[in-house]
């Protein structure tokens, strides 16, 4: 690490390339989404794309700085970074600016503002990696599990208080990390089952759902009646499901806020309010669907350019991709993400150090979760939850935090032969 040549030695250039490609796609689509004949140039600080260009420069510089750091420092600083982030998350609840119902921003002056919840993502990943890579720490053990849950849960709780449902849910993606580190697969199955039951329980009469579940369980039990262990598991699962279904109804009716209920209702097709609450989603689907195979062409989208789609440069940026680049462009973009995520898993797996591997899985899970929720939301597969599309959505905090998230891994990977101890 002492000579200049080694700074970029072993850097995974393919990942960097994908990163740059995604940033460029983002810049072009923001340009198109807010295109204005008065400001035709792509670099114009009066416009969002002009600002985004600056953010990209800043992000790249930050990335380079990270590559210059000692890998060891990242692990050592993890608690401090986590601590600062938590403090900022607390601070934002006191002095933060309330934008659109979420108290998520700290004003930095000059029109710039910081969103601590974005930085909480890599901070949590770092601390999680550091803790889990410690000796004698096993998620399968209760004490370790509880500490792990606390590391993840604390920032979640603070973000939930803003309240920013989208960013809160992002932390759920870390379950993949825990699974990789030995958490029982039942957790994954249960989470999957809960999502399934949640939808079913809202859509249908709980009594019918329970009856159907019971019948299904009975058939399985009869088929595998010799397997005692399975029978017990199934029975436990059934009891759990029934309890869950009732609690879903309770949560849905008593805990969820009206706008959240409406969003869920719209996704599930219970209500259709195309002019009011369902307007955003409907226009978003129209934008993407009207792109057909090849799209309407760069700067030729009508849905996004004529502001039928709201938030067209931030959360709904994928509408511009879908409308102007069509199915072909959408597949290319999703392909890039999939490629990036699989590459990240590969990178994580080639680490000798558990810290780097755990962190790597954290990065892959967080990025995957953002892509799934953001795109799923614009095409009506998941409720409208405001989280950005990584590297593409307009916004400095988001771009910067994803860059830091990714480049820490690239840095760790460049040093993969070494061992980082907690």
């Amino acid at each position, binding site marked *: 690490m002492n000579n200049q040549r080694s700074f970029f030695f072993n850097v995974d250039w393919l990942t960097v390339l994908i990163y740059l490609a995604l940033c460029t796609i983002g810049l072009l689509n923001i340009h198109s989404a807010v295109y204005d004949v008065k400001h035709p140039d792509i670099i114009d600080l009066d416009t969002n794309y002009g600002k985004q260009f600056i953010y990209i420069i800043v992000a790249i510089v930050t990335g380079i700085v990270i590559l210059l750091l000692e890998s060891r420092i990242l692990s050592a600083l993890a608690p401090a970074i986590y601590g600062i982030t938590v403090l900022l998350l607390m601070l934002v609840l006191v002095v933060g600016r309330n934008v659109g119902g979420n108290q998520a921003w700290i004003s930095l002056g000059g029109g710039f503002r910081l969103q601590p919840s974005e930085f909480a993502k890599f901070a949590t990943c770092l601390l999680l990696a550091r803790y889990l890579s410690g000796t004698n720490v096993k998620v399968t053990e209760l004490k370790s599990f509880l500490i792990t849950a606390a590391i993840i849960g604390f920032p979640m709780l603070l973000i939930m208080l803003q309240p920013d449902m989208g960013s809160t849910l992002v932390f759920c993606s870390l379950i993949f990390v825990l699974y*990789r580190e030995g958490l029982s697969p039942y957790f994954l199955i249960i989470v999957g089952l809960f999502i399934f039951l949640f939808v079913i329980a809202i859509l249908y009469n709980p009594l019918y759902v329970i009856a159907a579940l019971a019948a299904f369980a009975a058939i399985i039990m009869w088929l595998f009646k010799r397997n005692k262990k399975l029978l017990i598991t199934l029975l436990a699962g059934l009891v759990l499901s029934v309890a869950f279904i009732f609690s879903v109804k309770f949560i849905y009716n008593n805990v969820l806020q009206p706008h959240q209920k409406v969003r869920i209702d719209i996704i599930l097709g219970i209500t259709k309010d195309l002019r009011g609450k369902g307007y955003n989603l409907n*226009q978003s689907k129209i*934008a993407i*669907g*009207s792109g057909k195979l090849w799209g309407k062409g760069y700067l030729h989208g009508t849905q996004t350019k004529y502001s039928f789609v709201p938030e067209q440069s931030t959360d709904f940026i994928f509408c511009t991709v879908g409308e102007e680049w069509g199915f072909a462009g959408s*597949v290319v973009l999703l392909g890039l993400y999939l490629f990036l995520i699989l590459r990240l*898993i590969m990178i994580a*797996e080639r680490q000798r150090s558990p810290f780097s591997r755990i962190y790597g899985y954290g990065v892959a899970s967080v990025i995957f979760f953002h892509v799934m929720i953001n795109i*799923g939301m614009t*095409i009506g597969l998941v409720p409208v939850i405001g989280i950005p599309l990584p590297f593409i959505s307009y916004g400095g905090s988001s771009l910067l935090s994803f860059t830091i998230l990714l480049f820490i891994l690239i840095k760790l990977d460049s040093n993969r032969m070494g061992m980082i101890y907690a």
Partner: protein
Amino acid sequence: MNQFFERRYVIAGIFITIIFILIARLYYMQIVDDKYLLYANNNVIRTITKFADRGPILDRNGKILVGNELVYDISVIPKQVKPFDTMAFCKLIGMDKAEFDKRFLKAKIQSPNREIIFDKQLSPQLYASLQERLSEFQGFFVDPHPVRAYPDSVAAQFLGYIGEVQPKDIAKSGGYYRLGDYIGATGVEKAYEHILRGQKGVTNMMVDSRGVAKGSYANGAYDTIPIPGARLKSSLDIDIQKLGEKLMQNKVGSIVAIEPSTGEILCFVSSPTYDPNLMVGRNRGNNADSLNKDPYKPFFIRPIGAHYPPGSSFKPLSALIALQEGVITPQTTYYCPGYYISGNRRIKCLEKHGLVSLSSAVAGSCNGYFSMVFEKLMNVSGYKNISPTFTDWRTNVNKFGLGSKLGLDMPNEKGGNLPTALVYDKIYHKCGWRSSTIISLAIGQGEVEATPLQLANIECTIANHGFYYTPHLIKSVGTKNMIRPEDTVKKYVGIDAKYFEPVIDGMQAVVENGTAIRSKIPGIVMCGKTGTAQNPHGEDHSVFVAFAPRDTPRIAIAVVVENSGEGAHWAAPIASFIVEKYLKGSISKRETGITPEYFMEANRLPEINNYSHKPKGKPSPADSVKNIKKNTDQPKVKSVFHKNKKDTVKFLAVNKGK
């Protein structure tokens, strides 16, 4: 390596699966489902229709009967309105403040960003004063838009009017019309709608989510320019049309004049009429309402919609058929004792004509002669075989255009009535009727009924010695003056040309020294026939048919004045003025002293009670006679009027229970 190494595949598998679910959903939305593109276009494309100018309609000499005039619609984009002098604005457009506030609020609610119609159809005068100060009223815009204008206010029923399309028209047009479009509702406007309307143009604009225009769609690739409607040259002569409408004012009835050599309709008066300009502009609704409530029904197109027993005007036709069938010759004579006995019926004649020939029977309108001829004709195959004989006769009459539509190029034409043998079989049972039963048909009474158009067409046929052209209102279409091929087809009625002369002789005598002597035109030989159409509801209708000049007929005419008694009193003089005006361009002083002014001023409107057919009020035919006597100092005329009796017999069907 870590003990949970293989779990990477599970995680990667989940990620891949979910990404592919997203791609599958995108595939469905973007490739399979077409509705989103449609919705996107509906969102962003606003189609603005550019209306084509409606084609003008000219008279036969190129004078404009109906053209277009620009009126001005004021629209407003509420968001662009800056504070301004509301009172001054209200004064300029002639609106009170309360109405202004109401409309402005309504526009604001409708859409603050879009152009909304604020006030419709400002006159050019109002527009001129508004235009000077329009810059003070930001957010208000004025758009010109053509409406129908009738410079001479004539020929209302002929031209018809336009109105907003009805849902059934929209359905029939296969989407051409949109709600709020105008379409020809009656008359020529309706009949020639496809030619007059032209072709609408469209401009496709792109708008943003607030409805603000953002420029043209696809650089105008799908825009079309409106194509103005073609002009129509009608066959109408505006001068005699105007004269006819004046002569018929305060009367109920019709004038139809046709050029025999072409079938072109020269004059088409339906009275009472209305100013066609009433059916245009801001007060159209109110005007239409009061016209609809008018008990004399000005919207009723009498020349083609009203039908009357032709009365004595039917006699020339009767004679022609008898000549063709060979039951009489021009030399056949008959001694008229002042009445005619048929079966146990006694038909009164106008007077004791004495010995009459065919021509003098026509001239004197001898009921006896024509009853005799009719009975001879009906009994050629024996009185028991009347049914087939009658059917033959009916066919011959029908060839003249009676009993079926002539096919005028105008909607709502009626065919009149010409009974079939079946009708009589029904009334009197099979073989229960004889020539005496239907003797009233001989003199144009009874069940036979004709529209004024059909009556005029019969005169065309006589003038042409045996054929006619389908009457039509439109001479030619477009600047190239295209003529419809069907208008140039001669329709023969099956009577040899040689039989016409003796009948025409009689008709000439009608005017020279017969019933219509008072209406003789100096220097023009007019051949005509008076008639009196029986009216069970009140005073009889005055009918006169004619053509002139005899040798080279240029005009055939039918005039009906309802509830006015003798054809000679009202219909014939009116017809004579029209004919003279058309042939000579002016009306000369008459020996008889009758003047157009007298007829223009005379009021022959029936009492509303009588007209609406409620009580069977007793008319007093004597009144009209007295009036004429008082106003005309012509002894010759008096002598004709002296023996005035209705040249009609009772409606025979009524007496069937004898």
